[in-house]
């Protein structure tokens, strides 16, 4: 296949970026999207040019390190798919593909398609855990968790932290990311003692880090590789109000 690419190139967060044009003539439809970028980078390197910097690691959809806007959509056209799991069979010969970073205020561009998502780590650090030290745990089966509770907690816990929800949100809100973690613990018996503190602290950290408010458009769930439900956002708001009232 012949594929035309328009890719965002930017030296660093202090310089202005721009779209640049490239064309690949021998793209195979069985290639993954990132293997197509590998192909471009090999061509660029051979010409002595700097390759397009992009984040990626596991290439099987679970580490959350990859993620770009493809034709304006986070992770591209397929539903519930990371960039690395997208294959070129989703495009056709002669297509033009626009590739941009997850460009939002809270994810500064590091270079080209690489952005700084450390804000997400900061939100977890604010309280996204059960405060249990190594060695303190009781016998595992002494904490009973019903099948439904475990499964619904898992649905929320499955978040891979890629940031697609933030990138796709008009307000660059991290509500789905934060809500997923809060909902995971709200759906489990573990960590109940600190749930108010956790919720307040995580929500406040999210706001301090200039992530915006939820827009209620539900765009985040549409683009989420793990299909995390927007109901987790509702749960976060419920838990937040509950915690505020208690205070």
């Amino acid at each position, binding site marked *: 296949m012949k594929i035309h690419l328009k890719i965002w190139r930017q030296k660093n967060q202090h310089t202005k970026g721009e779209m640049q044009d490239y064309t690949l003539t021998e793209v195979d439809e069985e290639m993954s999207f990132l293997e197509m970028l590998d192909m471009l980078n090999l061509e660029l390197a051979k010409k002595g040019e700097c390759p397009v910097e992009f984040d990626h690691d596991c*290439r099987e959809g679970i580490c959350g390190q990859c993620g770009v806007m493809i034709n304006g959509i986070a992770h591209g056209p397929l539903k519930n*798919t990371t960039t690395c799991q997208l*294959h070129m069979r989703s495009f056709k010969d002669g297509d033009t593909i626009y590739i941009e970073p997850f460009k939002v205020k809270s994810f500064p561009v590091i270079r080209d398609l690489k952005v700084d998502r450390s804000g997400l780590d900061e939100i977890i650090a604010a309280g996204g855990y059960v405060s249990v030290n190594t060695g303190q745990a009781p016998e595992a089966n002494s904490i009973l968790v019903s099948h439904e509770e*475990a499964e619904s907690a898992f649905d929320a816990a499955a978040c891979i932290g890629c940031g697609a929800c933030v990138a796709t949100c008009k307000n660059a809100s991290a509500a789905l990311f934060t809500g997923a973690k809060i909902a995971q613990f709200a759906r489990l018996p573990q960590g109940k003692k600190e749930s108010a503190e956790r919720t307040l602290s995580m929500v406040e950290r999210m706001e301090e880090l200039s992530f915006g408010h939820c827009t209620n458009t539900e765009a985040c769930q549409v683009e989420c590789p793990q299909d995390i439900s927007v109901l987790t956002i509702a749960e976060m708001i419920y838990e937040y109000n509950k915690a505020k009232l208690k205070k």
Partner: protein
Amino acid sequence: MAKEIYANIPEGDLKDKWSNYKAQAKLVSPNNRKKMEIIVVGTGLAGASAAASLAEMGYQIKAFCFQDSARRAHSVAAQGGVNAMKNYQNDGDSVYRMFYDTLKGGDFRSREANTYRLAECSASLIDQAVAQGVPFGREYSGYLKNRSFGGVQVSRTFYARGQTGQQLLLGSYQALMRQKENGKVSMYTRHEMLELVVVDGKAKGIIARNLDTGKIERHGAHAVVLATGGFGKIYYLSTLAMGCNASAIWRAHKKGSWMANPSWTQIHPTSLPQSGPYQSKLTLMSESLRNDGRIWVPKAQDDQRPPHEIPEEERDYYLERKYPSFGNLAPRDIASRAAKEQIDAGKGVGALKNAVYLDFKDAIKECGKETIAERYGNLFSMYEKITGINAYKEPMKISPSAHFSMGGLWVDYDLMTNIPGLFAIGEANFSDHGANRLGANSLLQACVDGYYIAPYTLQNYLSDQIQVAKTDVSTEEFYQAEKQALQQLEEFVSCKGNKTSEEFHRELGKILYDKCGLSRSDEGLQEAIKKIQQLREEFKENLLVPGDVEDINSELEKAGRVSDYMELAELMCLDALTREESCGAHFRKEFQTEDGEALRNDEKFSFTSAWEWSGNPQNPILNKEPLTFEFVQPTQRSYK
């Protein structure tokens, strides 16, 4: 000069050794702990759990990872589960049985004491993970659920759908973030370790490169822990993440730390087959699928019919036929070799005839589509995303792929390398799995090393370092290490050849996979060594790295990793060449039983090879740690 090596195994009966160790281990008081710094490189399950646990104790931790967040380390990709001896199923499990399964699974090439400790500590890990909120699979009653993995006849595997590694890693990552918030951990993400710094014979720090700026940094500490994972990516095509590498352990090796059993690489039987020359990685399909999936190939060679048109009597369920008591759950080394045998005999399926079928037809008939979807739903959808095929309707096509390094840095019972103050934990060390790792024991080992062993053994080491001041990074040792690291990077950039490191890596991987992969021979290994030496020479003269040293430069990162692989590859071949026996994943064609199984030679090769760097990759020194079996009599491994 080759040395005899001792592993500092505590005295006493097998079941008392770890208790005796803990009873006698030296301590550091809380007010002294906060004055001591520990560097932990790698934030996978081993690194994150060690860093968090040590920080909880009060030590100051510097945690490094090359990814943009600690949560992305490749433990995240482990799918099927984690083993633990809880005997919740009342199916005859015990610590001894788990120890024996692991020892036998490793073909009697691991230390009894280490393997026993792994089984002994396994139960606590499940307690810890549940307390952290890891959503393991549950029965309707609320009790924990189990499934079975290869090489065992009990159900001791705990799982969180097909994302067990992710959930366990998030548990330890969150524990790590909690300590970061408490000010006990400093995170250095997007940092890569380039050199180990040794001062007066002790590990005292590292040289790291900030991958966002290209700046070289010096970091000092009282001890250094390497938790940098395995090096299966050396084969280029593997189930590992693109960034997985051997660089941290290899650079430590070149500073004097021994490499143990480097050639023992597990080739996983159930990964997706290669589909074209551009391919960058092979995706793993969890071994847990073998609980319900049946593996088969057509009986006839070059059978072009689609799978549903091949009648039952024309299918060969070769694992069930050859290993009736374990069937589709035969251990990985055996299942992979059996698949290769079928593919080599012309019975492979798929466009490139490089795969075998993994069929769920019977399981769906028996328990219904819904149950299968609940057990493996995410694996089936992942399979469909990658291949475009619905595995509820037709069988999966799977193929063996490089996966896990049983070898790694040599460590003693304390998980300390032969360089005092340098520890290696998780897949980065060699310690527990012998010549073949059982499924679901990798997550276990990483967690046990990090949560339960390192906190005791590091403290034991640090107890006599209390008087030692904070490491000064302005000394000659740090200066020299930094200079060496920088010099190498400059050589890569100034080489200005025609071939990228990725192209070199693909070539190297092909040599290794063909000659030092699923089966090895004297002739093949000799040939591989020659080719690797030539390729290494070419790499020095013809490497192409665009961009600068002091800048973001992913091509430069790759060059460093491939450069290390070029040396390690030769050591792997030498290790395989000198081990004139077959054991576990190490299968030498010359040494097999009449029916084609691995033939060990206990008289001559019941030892761990611990290779010492001599300054020249062609002439490493082979030290041997004898393996003595006090409690178990090694037998011919049989899964028939």
